[in-house]
């Protein structure tokens, strides 16, 4: 069984900072990591390989430093890695990202499952997985908590709020994995050493057979107009004490005082 895992490299911060002038992410001095959720996707793929055999390929689109993320994935034990790096890919929105990844999938050709993280910690749209499934015309099974392959079909336990759903689809199919599922393994030391001995092919537009105008910023229907931090209104916190009724009365009094009521 052949599995392709899509990983995104993201800045290692809980809150991203923005350049208010250009509207772009400030990445300087911030270390990059594999999008944490994508490590769950890698782990899921590795466990599926352990049970069903086959190969796991990891793929990422991004600037040249994504090689680091790909090496880390190789260190965790995936079999091979493919890098999509070209200046034409820069500035992709989710549509252009899914398009580019989709072309790469077509070039790889033979696969049974594509696994993505649910969402990236920076962009946070959670759209790339589903868009990629649409582009390739694959069944999509999102928010997976558990994945199982039974009789050449894939079964996914999906978490939807309080509900658990069991989905089944023929393969090939695309799955997005939840953050809580498949806690990533520690990269074994010998696999890390091997990871640096492997070649990582870099694919560019010419390798992908796509329409040039569909790549990157030009191919992106979504334009980022402005990024800003909403102004926080600073104020004082006042604790009202007493019984519920008492506090409610005091509260109404305060609202009247401020002409809110």
């Amino acid at each position, binding site marked *: 069984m052949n599995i392709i895992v899509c990983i995104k490299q993201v800045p290692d911060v809980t809150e991203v900072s923005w350049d208010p002038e250009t509207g772009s992410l400030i990445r300087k001095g911030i270390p990059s990591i594999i999008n944490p959720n994508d490590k769950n996707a890698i782990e899921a793929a590795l466990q599926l390989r352990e049970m069903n055999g086959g190969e796991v390929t990891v793929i990422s689109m991004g600037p040249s430093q994504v090689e*680091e993320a790909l090496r880390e994935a190789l260190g965790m034990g995936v079999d091979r890695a493919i890098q999509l790096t070209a200046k034409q890919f820069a500035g992709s929105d989710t549509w252009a990202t899914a398009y580019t990844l989709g072309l790469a999938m077509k070039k790889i050709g033979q696969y049974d499952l594509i696994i993505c993280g649910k969402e990236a910690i920076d962009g946070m749209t959670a759209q790339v997985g589903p868009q990629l499934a649409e582009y390739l015309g694959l069944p999509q099974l999102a928010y997976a908590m558990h994945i199982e392959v039974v009789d050449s079909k894939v079964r996914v336990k999906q978490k939807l709020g309080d509900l658990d759903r069991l989905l089944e689809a023929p393969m090939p199919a695309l799955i997005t994995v939840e953050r809580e599922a498949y806690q990533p393994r*520690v990269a*074994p*030391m*010998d*696999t890390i050493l091997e990871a640096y001995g492997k070649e990582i092919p870099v694919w560019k537009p010419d390798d992908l057979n796509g329409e040039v105008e569909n790549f990157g910023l030009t191919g992106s229907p979504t334009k980022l107009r402005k990024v800003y931090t909403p102004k926080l209104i600073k104020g004082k916190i006042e604790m009202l004490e007493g019984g519920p009724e008492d506090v409610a009365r005091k509260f109404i009094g305060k609202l009247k005082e401020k002409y809110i009521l």
Partner: protein
Amino acid sequence: MDFNLSPESKMMVKAAKDFCEKEIGPIIDEIIEKDDYPDDLLLSFAKARMLGLNIPKEYGGVGTTNLNTILITEELGKTGSVCAYPMLMNNSTAETIDYWGSEDVKKEFLPPLCDGSAYASTAFTEPGTGSDPRALTTTAVPDGSDFIVNGTKRYITGGNKKGYGVFYFKDEALKGEKGDVTAFIVDKSSEGYTTSAPWNLMGLEGMNCVDVFLNDVRVPGSSILGERGNGFKILLRWIAGERIQQAAYMVGLGQAALDESVKYLGERVVGGKPMGFMQGFQWMLAEMKGRLEACRYLTYRAACLQDEGNAIDIDSSELKVFVIPAIQEITRMALQIHGSYGYSKEYKVERLFRYAAHAGVVASSSEINKTIAGSALLKSRR
């Protein structure tokens, strides 16, 4: 001269950190409380392929450098737990077997040390001797192709854990010859092999230092490590490597002490001001950091010398002479910065201080190392 770690080394450090967070952090309290680690600790190291780090792949090892090995040990040191020791005992004992052992010995003993099914020990100390291994009294007497061994070994780390140990005995058949100490690989579940309860140590809870009583234990001749009578050489080479491992562990403890101090100084408010604004503490941090970096690079250098195939007996002694007191001072400062909290078991710095104390008396004492390093300087003048 390149002070940068290779990308592989950096990723190994990252993986070791990840391992410590996931596998070690959650069990530290329990280890301290029980003065013991879970039986499967070694298996979790094996799964992360942190055993047999210097051992060729054909015997089940990873086949990496000493530098990478000590970088991993340093990360384990940062946890302020004993857990580095079972790992490094397996690594250094396996390395010794790999260096001196015959092909048959390597094939028999290396795989279980690499796959985590056997806990390793090294045993030279006895009730009557620690610093002077020439004064050993445990004996090995030939009996056909086997040997019968008798005596008591003291303070043997992991001596009570299932697996193998490299033991040093007086080889009775070589009595009167220049080299009469032979190294044997002893199965710790042999008949006649018993142990005391673990010594109640000042720190390093879970170290499992026990006395080993050998009562007519039969050891096959095929378990001899290296040449007969060569034990002393084997031991000294092992100890030299162990000093570097120990220094790496100490650097980890020191880093943890500094990290805890920086955190505490940033949070604790005294007289309306965060303590970090007080110049006296800033100066302490500066001294801690300066010493720590010196210790770190001296340790890395020793490991690199080892990787380049140099003899490290003297360099590793110099290393120990500098690193041990420096890290002990760093942990003392960390305790002081934490005030009364530093003297409480609720705070990590308390145990960092206690744990750092061991290094001056384990794997050759500070005094012995000063003698080695100092006399070597004079020898080179002659």
